[in-house]
């Protein structure tokens, strides 16, 4: 007699590979993520770089020290002032050049404004990645516009400033700058409060960002994460405080840190940092001295043979320049420690197991700039 056996039906599903990018609305440039998906769930992710590689490090080897400054503008185009400053710090360290007091203050003011501008972009586009259709980012760009106007006053540029010089800044700030900055400082806290009211306790944002893409503390240190990504994981490490460059040791400010290291914490840390930057700005314009804005520096700088690593706390993390001099007018080696490039190291670990929508969110919360990642 035949026995009817119930056959167990097994549906075999296969993971499939999707290329997110290089041309994709949310890859913030031309980044490519080769995702292996099981339905919506990410099994694995491999980042692919190099679509914006321009060989800046090689280019710099054939330029004089001063003419490398415009190259640094093209690194992180959302925070060129910080890049200028980091490079100038490295050259000053290499050649032993002093900076006048007023220039130091101007540098701090400009760098902190740049941090606010960059964080506004970061937070805005993070929310855009979260699916809030353009509204937050457009409001934040409105405020960023105010900062760009201020930069425009200072150096006549809105994107690639080329303002910092070795030994100071290219020109003094105009008279109308300080009143305009004061007005900005008066209005900005109100705007920040407005965003906080709208976003901080937004139910959907909490559901989407809390607990998502956790970067544990130990891993964050091990991968060399820096900036808001590191601090959101609970590490109180800010180069402005740990290794004060310029005159940051004269200002009072707090270092906001997160606890969980998730996307929400990274967003919170950025917002709090904007407040701290406003605090520094207020102190800086109070003490701003009169005087020179640039020390006597020869037209062609010939640093002594040697090497120097100058770094600062950029908006996206520790931005460092490793310069080697052979005594000539051009750097022998010009290496950029790009914070976003290194922050991406753990991207795959953060994404595994989450869904496509989360992947975009996690990627957005790291806040990268392809100009800096690929160089």
């Amino acid at each position, binding site marked *: 007699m035949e026995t009817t056996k119930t056959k167990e039906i097994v549906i075999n599903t296969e993971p*499939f590979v*999707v290329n997110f990018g290089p041309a*994709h*609305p*949310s890859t913030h440039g031309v980044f490519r993520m080769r995702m292996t998906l*099981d339905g*919506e*769930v*990410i*099994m*694995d992710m491999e980042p692919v770089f190099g679509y914006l590689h321009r060989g800046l490090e090689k280019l710099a080897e054939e330029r004089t020290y001063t003419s490398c400054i415009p190259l640094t503008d093209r690194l992180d185009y959302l925070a060129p002032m910080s890049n200028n400053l980091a490079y100038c710090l490295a050259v000053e360290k290499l050649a032993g050049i002093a900076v006048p007091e007023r220039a130091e203050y101007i540098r701090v003011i400009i760098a902190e404004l740049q941090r606010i501008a960059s964080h506004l972009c970061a937070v805005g586009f993070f*929310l*855009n*990645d*979260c*699916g*809030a*259709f*353009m*509204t937050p980012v*457009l*409001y934040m760009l*409105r405020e960023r516009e105010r900062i760009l106007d201020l930069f425009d006053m200072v150096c006549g540029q809105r994107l690639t400033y080329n303002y910092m010089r070795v030994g100071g800044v290219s020109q003094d700030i105009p008279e109308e700058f300080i009143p305009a900055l004061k007005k900005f400082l008066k209005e900005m806290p109100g705007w920040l409060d407005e965003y906080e009211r709208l976003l901080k306790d*937004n139910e*959907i*944002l909490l*559901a*989407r960002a809390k*607990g*998502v893409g956790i970067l544990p503390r130990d891993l964050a240190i091990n991968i060399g994460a820096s900036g808001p990504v590191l601090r959101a994981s609970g590490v109180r490490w800010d180069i402005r405080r740990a290794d004060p460059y310029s005159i940051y040791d004269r200002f009072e400010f707090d270092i906001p840190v997160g606890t969980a290291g998730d996307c929400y914490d990274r967003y919170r840390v950025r917002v709090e940092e904007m407040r701290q930057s406003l605090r520094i700005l207020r102190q800086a314009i109070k003490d701003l001295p009169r005087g020179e804005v640039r020390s006597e520096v020869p037209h062609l700088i010939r640093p002594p043979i040697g090497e120097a690593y100058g770094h600062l706390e950029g908006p996206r993390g520790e931005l460092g320049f490793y310069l080697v001099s052979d005594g000539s007018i051009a750097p022998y080696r010009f290496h950029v420690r790009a914070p976003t490039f290194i922050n991406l190291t753990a991207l795959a670990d953060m994404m*595994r*197991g*989450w*869904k*496509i*929508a*989360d992947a*975009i969110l996690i990627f957005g919360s790291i806040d990268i700039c392809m100009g800096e990642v690929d160089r």
Partner: protein
Amino acid sequence: MAMQMLPPNWPGNFWAHWAIFAVVILVFVLLMVMFFIWLERRAMAVMQARLGPNRAGPFGLFQPAADALKILIKEDIIPARSDKLVHWLAPVVAFVPAVLVFAVVPFWGGALLADLNIGILYVVAISSVTIVGIFMAGWSSNNKYSTLGAMRQVASVVSYEIPVVLSLVGVILLAGSLSMQQIVAAQDIPFILLQPLGFLLFFTGALAEINRAPFDLTEADSELVAGYMTEYSGMKFGLFFLAEYAEALAISAIVTTVFLGGWRGPLLPPWLWFVGKVVIVFFVIVWIRTTVPRLRIDQLMALAWKFLLPLALLNLLITAAEILFWPAVSLWVLIPINFAVMIVLVLLWSRLFKLGWGKVEV
């Protein structure tokens, strides 16, 4: 007839009526869609601190016409390894049902193509056919973004159809009829007051069905580029775009008819009341779109099955009980009761309910 529904001198001939209304509906849909596109872009611009289209015509009113012209003369690109026939057919399948819905929507007392006695059932049935077109588009495009987008859409429509239909049943109980005409006639008090919870559930579910924010996962531009439309260009893309707004228009019209008292209202001519209400509903949809971030797919499913469905069942139960036990009670008494029920249930359920479950171990 107790209620005068037909305006005087209405063309009585069956075929004339049919022909006139076919034209009226098409013109209405196309004009309203163009107006909606303009409205959405302008309203969003105002909400987002920018200007929006303001060059073509007064206040940029001709912008949609200009866009339509541009889209018509665009190259029609068909992906090399796509399923050509299905790819061609998909926009049509998606667009037609969105227009068909208007066959039973009364613009005026008696002014509708067909007063079906199962009107609302027809609406529910027809409006979910669009999804077939969308899945055809996603499948035939031979693109992974498209497929993912289409699958998300199918999943969300299948889930949300249930709470949407269940929340409509409450209205049907109150009106005692499935005919759209009768439902409007029954609304001496707009049903939004009598069925606040039903309205909330229906509106939420409908937003998910027409894939509007915060449920716009299907085209999720920050994730899936454009979802099922990724590989479409030219007029086919235009048809999808049209279908999307036609769906939004259809949902606005259904909400107007079922919950807001349709064409009824004092002073102004009925058709103006109808259009005005439709525009207001659509404006609310736009408002929501500019305000909230997007949900994730598992959260979307959780919302449908764990939040909307139980509440829709409870709403149905309560409405049925009210009708069964207090048939004679004045409807005005039910309004505060129903509002209280809604507030209590929504608050209670949002405490119990947790969105999604997050990470999967791989």
